[in-house]
């Protein structure tokens, strides 16, 4: 008995270590962002908001933030639309080549970003579409649509397939059934998908860096600062990126989970 207790305590400590390893960089980044030292170490320097002041005063950061906002919102809309179409097609229809059809949307995340970045850069340059903000949007929509598809497909799984037929049976055309039944039913997952795809797009740097040309997004700015030298501005920017992403993820969870619970009661 005693042996099991020792073992259990050790397991708890071990789990704590793993979580400490995973969260250490996030926490330290937050701490460093309020630390006066340029080369942070222990003992810590004084509390300072110097780095925040610096980034607020930097017009490049503001432009990057605006760019990121445009890119992530547009990406979210396009990817969620694509994800919805595919999820609905998969839910409603059986057709030949459905396997390859689904592979088409689900495969992109398994391909290393650096490869996607190179391929996108080459292809978009060829088409004359590179170096623009919407180059990033095109690329990100491909990368994030599978997440939207997965979330919306899960929601459709919970739907009684008779619901759509019931709408037709009551005199609704296919389009009316889509508008008055399928979309309202999927709404929570659509909002979740919008938040999640926006969050993924907001953090992506490799593809953005390759295809964006001079239109930098926030992660690209971080990448370039990091390349230069140690500059704790990165931590301050990181805090904002973290807050934005977390807000989106938590919103996504709230919409997704709350509906999940509701439909079970």
């Amino acid at each position, binding site marked *: 008995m005693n042996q099991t207790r020792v073992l259990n305590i050790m397991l708890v400590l071990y789990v704590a270590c793993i979580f400490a390893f995973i969260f250490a960089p996030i926490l330290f980044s937050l701490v460093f962002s309020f630390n006066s030292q340029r080369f942070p170490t222990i003992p810590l320097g004084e509390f300072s908001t110097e780095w925040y002041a610096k980034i607020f005063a930097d017009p490049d950061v503001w432009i990057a933030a605006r760019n990121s906002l445009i890119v992530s919102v547009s990406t979210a809309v396009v990817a969620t639309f694509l994800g919805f179409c595919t999820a609905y097609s998969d839910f409603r229809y059986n057709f030949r080549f459905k396997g390859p059809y689904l592979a088409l949307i689900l495969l992109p995340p398994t391909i290393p970003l650096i490869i996607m970045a190179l391929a996108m850069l080459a292809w978009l340059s060829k088409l004359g579409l590179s170096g623009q903000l919407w180059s990033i949007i095109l690329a990100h929509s491909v990368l994030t649509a599978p997440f939207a598809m997965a979330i919306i497909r899960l929601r459709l799984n919970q739907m*009684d397939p*008779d*619901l759509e*037929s*019931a*709408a*037709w*049976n*009551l*005199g*609704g*055309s*296919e389009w*009316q059934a889509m508008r*008055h*039944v399928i979309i*309202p*039913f999927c*709404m929570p997952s659509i909002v979740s998908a919008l938040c999640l795809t926006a969050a993924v797009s907001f953090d992506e740097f490799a593809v953005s860096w390759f295809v964006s040309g001079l239109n930098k997004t926030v992660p690209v700015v971080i990448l370039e600062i990091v390349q230069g030298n140690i500059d704790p501005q990165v931590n301050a920017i990181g805090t904002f990126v973290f807050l934005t992403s977390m807000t989106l993820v938590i919103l996504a969870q709230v919409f997704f989970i709350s509906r999940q619970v*509701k*439909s079970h*009661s």
Partner: protein
Amino acid sequence: MSEPLVTFRNVKKHFDDFVAVRDMDLDIYPGEFLAIMGSSGCGKTTTLRMLAGLETPTAGQIHIGGELMNNVKPHERDTPLVWQSLALFPFLSARENVEFGLKMRGVAPAERTRRALEWLNRMEIGEFAERNITTLSGGQKQRVALARSLVMEPKMLLLDEPLSALDANLVIRMQAVLTRLQKELGITFVYVTHSQSEAFAMADRVVIMSQGEIAQVGSPKDIYRAPANRFVAEFVGRNNILTGTQVSQDGNGIVVETPSGTFIASAPETARSDGSEVTFVVSADLVSLSVEEPQDRNRVLCTLISEEFVGSMVTLFLESSDGHEFKVQMQERDLIELDLHSGSQIWLSWAVENAHVLDGE
């Protein structure tokens, strides 16, 4: 009867290699309560779905009100369906669910609200009009589903096992609600079910289906007393089915020699010749029991195997000397007088006119 409202002519429905419905011919008349009954996979739901336009017949024609309906889309029909799953819209209130069809048809908001509330009140659930559908009980949801279909004022209402999710006492109440509604509205109900008690309790006519084909159409009484074939006789249950060889024919009926004995069965003058195989059925509630050997010519001595009680009715399972199983149904109080126990020997007998010969067997 009047002109049929619905006609099925040589209707077939295939799903890839699976034949769901084959060569169906059926007329449905205005104002009747028709039940389509059969075990799962017999094609009854496919038949209903073809009426609603949710499936297209592979061959044959379906007419409704004289119009060919084969390629008419579901939403262009006037055939509201009450679903087995109810298929109520979970994100709408009870009233909004009932209004749905009117909204699709472009009825003005005020008018559709008025009509929806009228139907909810008629179904005695007016007080739940603004409640979210997920918060209602099974019986209440059932009534919303009915109201949602009936508010469309159809000539025909389709029902797909609507009571299968309810518990037993609620089923009886809803049966009463349905029969009353059907009589009041005077519209056609087409009711698909696997439950014999539901079909027999409510329907004017019953269609029994088996493997995509109609096994028999008739009033509940016809089907119960005069099953058309062995399938129906077995499906309806509580029938004693005996097969033997015809040895002679006289004014009373035909004499059939079976392993359990020789019996006389009533049959119209037929072309059946002596020596041919004959199957007849005797309904379990028309068999009498006696301790003394009875005078009837149709009698057999059996051993009691077991008994099964449902309410005040009891079904006895007995076995003749050749091992054939007999079923006898009777009131429980009549059983007490006989003082039987497992292994008791007892005589079974029945009148000639209650032995019904199956056609074409």
